């Protein structure tokens, strides 16, 4: 069993060797998101051995861990002290690592009501192309010293360097959690989600699938009780509710095996789109999943509504991520050039030409 210092030294050696030889590195934790990205390129650099929780004090509401620490390990440590990761990172078909969770920056059903992965990243360490470890942000709730680079790393897909350590904000588990189910069509569900979002309700998730809206309430018992009485619908048994939200978070519904699947992320209260009915709504209607059909241009429709479309499955000739505007692409290029001038890290993973 190697020590964390030895694991980190081995990673640094690989980076320095790549820098010297001109090799490219493909960063890999558990590989749960190998399917996601523009392309996979370079020699695989496994990061899973650099693992373990470094600091966790429940009264600080912060956990700091190495990049190879798995989601299940983090969740177990937090649950043992009555806390959790409110952004509900998706596990997909395995047990992702903390580094990958932050690099992809994806969030589950609670995202709309609790915040996204990025909002919970308090600090991170980055091993750069020169083999130096840089520390950004910290372990405190409030910190505005310097640029917020820990959050720049969130969603960077490893193209700026290796995230070696992360501090995440955590929260106490809700005292009470209940899920309600209502028969609704998708437009009515979206309208209801928008209306409820403006009211003092303890919502923590709102989804729709196959003719039914699923509403999760989380908070103090009296608030959950009052909201349940107000919203009506059928109370879903706890175990069934947990399994449902997990299958939405982890993309385990049968829908996710469809040959063609698009994921549209949209502004709040955007209303119905000029598309056939969605197959799944999440995030109170701001995340919409569609099975690809004919030549429907999901990109154009999402963009017209002020959102983006991610190609989840199929339609392989299209880019994976929503194309960047010219100005945003230029920023990506300049950041990449300055952080990774030799183009060592995850070439083409986030943007095809980077």
């Amino acid at each position, binding site marked *: 069993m190697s020590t964390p210092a030895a694991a980190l030294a081995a990673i640094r050696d690989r980076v320095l060797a790549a820098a010297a030889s001109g090799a490219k590195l493909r960063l890999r934790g558990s590989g749960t998101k190998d399917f996601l990205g523009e392309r996979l390129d370079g020699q695989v650099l496994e990061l899973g051995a650099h693992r373990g929780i470094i600091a966790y004090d429940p*009264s*600080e509401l912060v956990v700091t861990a190495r990049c190879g620490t798995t989601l299940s390990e983090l969740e177990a440590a937090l649950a043992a002290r009555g806390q959790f990761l409110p952004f509900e990172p998706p596990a997909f078909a395995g047990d992702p690592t903390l580094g990958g969770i932050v690099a992809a920056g994806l969030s589950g059903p609670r995202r709309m009501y609790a915040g996204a992965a990025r909002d919970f990243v308090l600090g991170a360490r980055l091993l750069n192309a020169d083999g130096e470890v840089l520390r950004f942000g910290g372990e405190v709730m409030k910190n505005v*010293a310097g*640029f917020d680079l820990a959050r720049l790393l969130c969603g960077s897909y490893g193209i700026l360097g290796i995230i070696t350590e992360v501090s995440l904000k955590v929260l*106490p588990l809700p005292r009470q959690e209940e899920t309600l189910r209502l028969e609704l069509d998708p437009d009515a569900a979206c309208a209801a989600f928008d209306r409820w979002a403006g009211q003092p309700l303890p919502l923590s998730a709102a989804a729709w699938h196959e003719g039914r809206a699923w509403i999760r309430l989380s908070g103090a018992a009296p608030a959950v009780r009052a909201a349940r009485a107000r919203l009506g619908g059928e109370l879903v048994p706890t175990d069934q509710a947990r399994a449902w939200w997990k299958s939405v978070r982890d993309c385990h519904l049968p829908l996710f095996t469809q040959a063609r699947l698009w994921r549209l992320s949209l502004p709040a209260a955007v209303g119905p789109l000029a598309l056939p009915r969605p197959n799944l709504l999440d995030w109170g209607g701001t995340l919409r999943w569609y099975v690809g059909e004919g030549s429907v241009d999901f990109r154009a429709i999402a963009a017209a509504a002020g959102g983006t479309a991610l190609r989840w499955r199929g339609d392989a000739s299209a880019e994976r991520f929503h194309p960047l505007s010219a100005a945003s692409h230029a920023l990506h290029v300049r950041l990449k050039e300055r952080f990774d001038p030799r183009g060592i890290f995850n070439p083409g993973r986030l943007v095809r030409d980077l």
Partner: protein
Amino acid sequence: MHRAADAVAAVIRAGIIPAALEMMDRKATAAVEPFVRAGYDLDAAAILLVESDGTPEEVADQVAEIEQVLRRAGAGVLRVSSDDAQRALWWSGRKNAFPAAGRISPDYYCMDGTIPRRHVGRVLEAIEAMEARYGLRCMNVFHAGDGNLHPVILFDANEPGSWERAERFGAEILELCVELGGTITGEHGVGIEKINSMCVQFSAAERAAFFAVKEAFDPAGLLNPGKLIPTLARCAEYGRMRVHAGALAHPDLPRF
């Protein structure tokens, strides 16, 4: 003071996240009370202001729970506001702490460091020791729930060397925040004034990364040059100027 800090941690540990959790030390309450008449207990070493929000049932539940935690943590006096007017009055004391500093001192210098909550007691003690060393008073008002300190250093700019001592005092507090895993600014940010303390919190390579981001967004360097990120030369200069554990060698000499 330590017990007040521990009480804050106990509230969070109990799984309660109040809407606001603020702390004032005795120096702060003494400065504010004659001015605002909020009814603060002036015998207490520190007071906590804890706010709960939500539906009436939720608030009643949470307040009862917070009372229990604070009582166990050794709170001397516990009061729950009975109406909105009283709530506003208690908050007005906190909100007027800075103007109140202006009543008891010709000038004041407000800092904004953040530390992990567990170190609050330790930092407050260290500040007390610094007060003696720098010959200046410092009152403490802060967002205890976030570990965000606002030490208010009192000084008189007409007194030669007083401002320089206040500035050194402030910088030493911030250095301690960094040493304990915190930051030099929790919410007010860095422009010019705290720029030297950036040299303490960030390494040369980290500052280079900030410049890289700055260049990516502003390749021609048109926007606010010289702010936020200190140059290597500035940090080298600051490193030479810093004197550990005390004031400068010749505090009476003006420095530029």
